[in-house]
C-alpha cells in the first residue's frame, strides 16, 4: 500500500485515499487526427520497468487530480506535482535525475 502526498492539500495519505489514473501527460487527439494518432492516444501506454509519470486522484480527500513520478520496480516516489502542467516541473526532473541518472520517460528526460 503506497504512501502518496497530495500536492494540493498537502496530505500524506494511504493508497486507499487515492485512485490511480494511468499515464500522465497524454496529449488528446480529437476529430481531424489520423487513425494512428488516435489509436495511440486511446490505447498505447508505455508500462516501463522504472521511472513512470502517472495520474492519481485524491478521491477520498480533496478530490483533486495530481501527477506522481514513481519507480514501478522499487515503488520509490520521486515526487508529486500539479496535474495542470504539460511536463514535469524542473525540480521533479532534477529529483529523478539525482536518483536515476539518464532516465527517460516518453519525451521527457
Amino acid at each position, binding site marked *: *500500500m*503506497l*504512501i*502518496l502526498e497530495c500536492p494540493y492539500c498537502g496530505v500524506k495519505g*494511504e*493508497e486507499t485515499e487515492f485512485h490511480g*489514473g494511468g499515464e500522465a501527460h497524454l496529449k*488528446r*487527439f*480529437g*476529430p*481531424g*487526427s489520423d*487513425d494512428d494518432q*488516435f489509436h495511440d492516444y*486511446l490505447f498505447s501506454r508505455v508500462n516501463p520497468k522504472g521511472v513512470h509519470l502517472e*495520474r492519481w*486522484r485524491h*478521491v477520498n480527500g480533496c*478530490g*483533486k*487530480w495530481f501527477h506522481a513520478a514513481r*519507480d514501478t520496480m*522499487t*515503488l*520509490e*516516489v520521486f515526487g508529486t506535482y500539479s*496535474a*495542470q502542467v504539460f511536463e514535469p516541473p524542473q525540480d521533479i526532473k532534477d529529483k529523478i535525475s539525482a*536518483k536515476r541518472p539518464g532516465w527517460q520517460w516518453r519525451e521527457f528526460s
Partner: protein
Amino acid sequence: MSTRLATGGRLLDKTKAVEFQFNGKRLKGYAGDTLASALLANDQMMVGRSFKYHRPRGVVASGAEEPNALFNMGQGAKFEPNQRATTTELFSGLYATSQNHWPTLEFDIGAINTLLARFLPAGFYYKMFMYPRTFWKHVYEPFVRQSAGLGKAPDAETKDADTYEHFYFFADVTVIGGGVAGLQAAKVAAKSGQKVLLIEQTSAWGGRAAVDGGEVDGQPVADWIDATIAELDAMENVTLRLRTMASGVYDHGYVLGYERVTDHQPDVTGPRHRLWRIRAGHIVTATGAIERPLSFAGNDVPGVLLAAAVRDYAVNWGVSIGDRTVVVTNNDNAYRTAITLKELGLEVPAIIDARAEGGGALADKARDMGIRVENGKAVVKVKGTKRVEGVAIGLQAGEGAVLETIKCEAVAMSGGWSPVVHLWSHCGGKLIWDEAEAHFRPDPDRAPKGDAGQAFVTCAGSASGAMGLGDVLADATSAGAKATGKRKPKAPAGDARDEAPMAPVWMMPQGAGAKLKMKMWLDPQNDVKVSDVQLAAREGYESVEHTKRYTTLGMATDQGKLSNINGLAILSDALNQPIPQTGTTTFRPPYTPISMGAIAGEARVATFQPIRRTPMQDWHEGQNPFFEPVGHWRRAYCYNRPGETHGQAVEREINQTRNSLGLLDASTLGKLIVKGPDAGKFLDMLYTNMMSTLIPGKCRYGLMCTENGFLSDDGVVARIDEDTFLCHTTTGGAERIHAHMEEWLQTEWWDWKVYVANVTEQFAQVAVVGPNARKLLEKLGGMDVSKEALGFMEWADGQIGGFDARVYRISFSGELSYEIAVPASQGAAFWNALMEAGEEFGVMPYGTEALHVMRAEKGFIMIGDETDGTVIPQDLGLNWAISKKKEDYLGKRAQERSHMADPNRWKLVGLETVDGSVLPDGAYAVADGKNENGQRNVQGRVTSTYYSPTLKKGIAMGLVHRGPDRMGEVIEFPTIGGANVKARIVDPVFYDKEGEKQNV
C-alpha cells in the same frame, strides 16, 4: 507412547487442569498447553490423514510451520476448519475433530489410495482428468469434489457468531518476533525514544532461547528475557503484543498484524480477532528460523518429529513423544534434543549423524552422557504405520542396505535451519544462498524499498542467518540501531556458537533407490514425495514455480514452510544445477492463514455496504414493496397488494398510471449542477448534442459517451440560467459522471471556468404521471402548470400545494408527466400530500419494473440494458441526439473509426414475437452457418423484453445485424428449452408513436 512427564513444562500451570474434547473423547490438559501438546500428552500420536493417500499423520512441529495437525474446531456458528493444533492454545471446553478421513481417523477407506500411490504420481490430476470430455460430469467432477479440500466448509446457513475488528497503528519501528533478537532490537530502538511496536505470534516471549538456554551477560537467558520485557513494558513509547502474527509486509512500510484476542479465552467478551493495520517507519523482522525435516523413507509416520519440536514438547509442556527417541541429524543443533531427553531421564538409543566427520562439542557432551553416536549413518526407513516402532539404519553414503534395526517410539530429525525470510520477501527483499548453512538468507544490500527509496526492512537474529546466541544478540543490536538511524550501542554478550559445520543432506541415504524415494515425504500434507519432484524434472519442469504447481509441493495450508528448501534441493539435483540457480518460489502473504472474519472486520451486514435512502424510504418500506438494489439504493420493484404476484402488481401499476395517475419516487436520479461562464462550452464537449444553445427554462435529453465512443450515460439537462445547467444522470450514475466531469475539467480543460456540484441528495424528486397528473397539481394549487405556461420539455420554479418546487415537464413513460423536485427535507411531506390529494384519481405508487415496461413500450433506451460498454449512440438510432454542427465532443473521433462507422453493426430495433409470447431476456438470434469454433452464428440479441399490459403481448428491443434495414423480417431465437421463438423486426416504439399523450 507419548505421555506427560512428571516434571517439566515451563509454560504449564499444573494447578489448572483443562478439559477438552477430541473426536468425542474427553481429555485433560493444563493451562498453558497447546492443543498439540495436550493431545500428545494423551498419547494421540495420529492426528489426521494426508490429502491424497490418506496416510496416517502425526504432529511434526511445535509452531506455525506444522503441516499435519489441522482440525475442525468448534461447533455450529463457531465452527471453523483447518485450525492448527500447534498454535491453538488449550481452553476449557475446546471441541476438536480430525479431518480428511471416512469413516474414522483410525479406519479410513481413502487410505486405499496409498496402495494406488504408483498410479497417483505428480501431475496426476492434470493427466487423469483431461479426457474423455464426457467423463467430467459424472465421473471426474464428483471424484474431485469428494476429495477436494481438507476440512469441512462451515454450514452455509450459519452466521459466524463472533465479532472482529480492525485497528490502525503507527509506529516509528515495528519489531516482528519476540525472541531474544526481537527483544534486543526493540530495546535498542526504544532507547532512542522512538515509538516502538513489538509483536509476537505465540503466547510467550523468548522464542527458542527460552527452551535452549544459554547465558547473556553472565545471567541465564530466561532471566534476561524477563528483565528485558519488564524494561520494555515500563517504557511509554513501547507497545507489546503477544498472540499477534505479522501476516504480511507491504509497500512503504505497511504491515498487517493478526491478533488472536479471545481464541484462547472464549468466555471473555470482545472481538475474537483484531486486524492491525500498521504503518511503520522501519520494520525489523526477528522471525527466527525453522528447522528442516530430512528425507528418508517413512519420515511421515506419526512419531517422526522435528528435533527442536521434540525439545519444545519436553521443555515447554513436559511431554515426551516416546520413551525411546532416535535422533537423526546433519548438524550439531539436534544433539541438544538428545541431551535434553537424556537429562529428563528418557532413552536415546542412538544419534544417527549423516556427517562422516560427526559433530563438535555437543556431540562430545552427548557421548559423555553415554549416548551412542553413529557418524556417517542414515535412517534407511522407519518401521511402523500408525506410529513409529523402530528405525532401520545404514550408511549415508550407501544405497539403503540395512545394518541394524533399532527399536524406538519416536524419531527426532533435523536437516538444518532455514531463516524465516517470508516477511522480508513479501515486499521485494532479495535472498542469498548461504553455502555453509545450506539455506537462503536475506541479502541486507537488497532490502525492500520505501517511498523515499530507503530500505525499510531489516532482519535480526536467526531470521538474518545469525545462528547462536552471541551472534543473534550482536545482529539484533545492529538491526535496532539501523531501524532508528542512531548509533549502535554495545551488544550484550551471549554464548558463542561452538558447533561443527553442518552438511547438506537432501536425501537419506544418498543413493536410495526408487522404492525408498517413493516413501520419502517432502510435503506431508499434500503428499508430495522426493520421487514426485524427480518425476516432474524428468517430464521437463525446470522452473520451480511450475514444479510447485505440477506436484502441489508447498501448496498446502502450511505453504511449504517445511518442504520448500528440501523440494528445491531435490529439483536442483535432478536438474543438475546449483540451488541458487533454481531459486525459490514466491513468498506471499499471509505468513499463516488469517480468518476471513478478521479481514472483514466490522464490515458485516449493514456496515458492509451502507444503503442509501431517499427522503420517502420510510413510506416505501411501509407499503410491502419488493425492493431491488439499484446502485447503493433500494428501489421498490413493485408494491404488492395482498395476494398479488409481482407480475400482477406491475400490471396494476401500469394500467393505473396509463389510465389515470401514478407516482414514482425519482429521487435517486443523479442531479449535477454545472455552473460557470464556460459551462455551455463544457457540456458541448460532454454531451453528443448541443447544450450551449439550450434556452434557460428549457430541457433537453442528452447522451454522454466515453472518449472511446461508447454510450456511458443519459439524462435530461435543464438550463437554469445563462451560467447554470442542471444535468440529470441515471440512478447510480451521479458519482461516476461527477468524477468523469471533474477528470476532464481538472486534467484537460483546466483553464475553463466551470465547476460541478453533486446535489443528488439535496432534492427529493417525484414523477407525477398519467392523464390526471395536471389535475392533481392544479388541485394542490400554486404555480401554473398548464400546457401554455409549462410546455413539454420546459421547467419552472414555483409552489405546489405550499411546497417550494421545481417542476420539469419531462416524460419517461410517454404520459403527461411532471417531475417535481422539492428540498429533501420536504420530500416525505410532499409525497404524502400527493398521495392524499390523488386519492380521487385512484393514485398509486409505481415501482421500477412498471417504469421499465412503460419506457420500453415507448422505445426509450435504458443505460445498462440497451448499452453494455460496447454500444455507441448510432447503434441505438439516436443520431437525432448527436450534433452534426459540433467540431468535437468526447467520443466523436472514436465514432469515426472504421469499425464504429461500419454499416454492419448490430442496431436497435423492436422485436415482436409472432405468437405474442415474451422473448427470453438476453436471447440470441441465430444466423446461418457456424463460426470458427463450431458454434452457431448469431445475428442479434434481446436487450429488453417485457409483457406489455398496455398492448397485451410481449414486446422487446434488441440489437440486430443491420436491424433497421430489415423491418418486417422474422428472425429466430433459440430458447433454453430448445424451442425456437420467431420474432418480427419492428419499430422500437410500440406505443403512441406520435407522442400525443405526453404532449398535452
